[in-house]
């Protein structure tokens, strides 16, 4: 099985980083939802908070790595002026042009919303720590922002995978 460097980089960007972000979301959401005074003892609270801090920070870091690698490493290969680049192939054919004009253009921008929102969540969890347990409104607000980060990452990942299927970076 021979994969090129570009294919390995695309797999790392899409599967390892993008997929990792989506998996971490589940842990972060469960941690935020479970961080209620009624549901936790003092000992359990400390353990859950430490885990939540780690997961949300990791989520933000992974989201940043995903968009930076996508924009600065994969994107130049995708949009190179060569007639064999994925973008050139897609826009040359009227039946595949929308894959670039809609799917890729949306994906390359909306993906950047995820690290920004994930960083907001990670910051608030780290800053407020145990006081979050008694602040249901703030906890719920974080769950909304985390869900949005997840939705934007999912849209970017879905369109990225579909575009790669039609015209892979090689």
């Amino acid at each position, binding site marked *: 099985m021979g994969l090129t460097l570009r294919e390995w980089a695309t797999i790392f960007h899409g599967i390892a980083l993008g997929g990792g972000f989506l998996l971490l979301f589940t842990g972060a959401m469960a941690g935020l939802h479970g961080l209620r005074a009624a549901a936790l003892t*003092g000992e359990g*609270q*400390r353990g859950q*908070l430490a885990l939540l801090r780690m997961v949300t920070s990791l989520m933000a870091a992974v989201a940043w790595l995903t*968009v930076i690698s996508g*924009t*600065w490493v994969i*994107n*130049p290969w995708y*949009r*190179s002026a060569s007639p064999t680049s994925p973008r050139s192939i897609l826009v040359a054919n009227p039946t595949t042009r929308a894959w670039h*004009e*809609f799917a890729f*253009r*949306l994906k*390359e*921008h*909306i993906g*950047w*919303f995820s690290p*920004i*929102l994930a*960083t*907001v969540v990670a*910051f*608030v969890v*780290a*800053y*407020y*720590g*145990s*006081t979050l*347990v*008694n*602040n249901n*409104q*703030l906890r719920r*607000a974080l769950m*909304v*922002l985390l869900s*949005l980060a997840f939705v934007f990452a999912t849209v970017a990942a879905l369109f990225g995978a579909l575009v790669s299927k039609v015209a892979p970076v090689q």
Partner: protein
Amino acid sequence: MDTPMDQTESQEPSGAPNSLPTGPAVAAMIAGGIGTAVLGALTVLAETGLRARDSLTWSTTVGPLSGETILAVGVWLASWALLHLALRGRDVKVRTALGLTLALVLLGVLGVFPAFFHLFAQD
């Protein structure tokens, strides 16, 4: 450096946490919304003509996305710092801040939505 939580824990060894002003959380949330809205606005701007596109093309291999994202992240961080300084000791309604943040994020989504930004395409 002590984080607020560390301070809280040192004040309350029994484990009963103090509450902290919501200002810093609200500042982070609204700044996040501003960052996404700015990215949406810059995406639309890049469609309005070659001059705008060129001015946002900070890397020829990446294209206008380079300037759009670097500027949006810069505005996000700067607005976060300013809002944090302004709100750090204050209690601000989280629900109102969330509403404002969601409105800004919605503007950002509109700006990066191809069917919308193509309306401004000049070339």
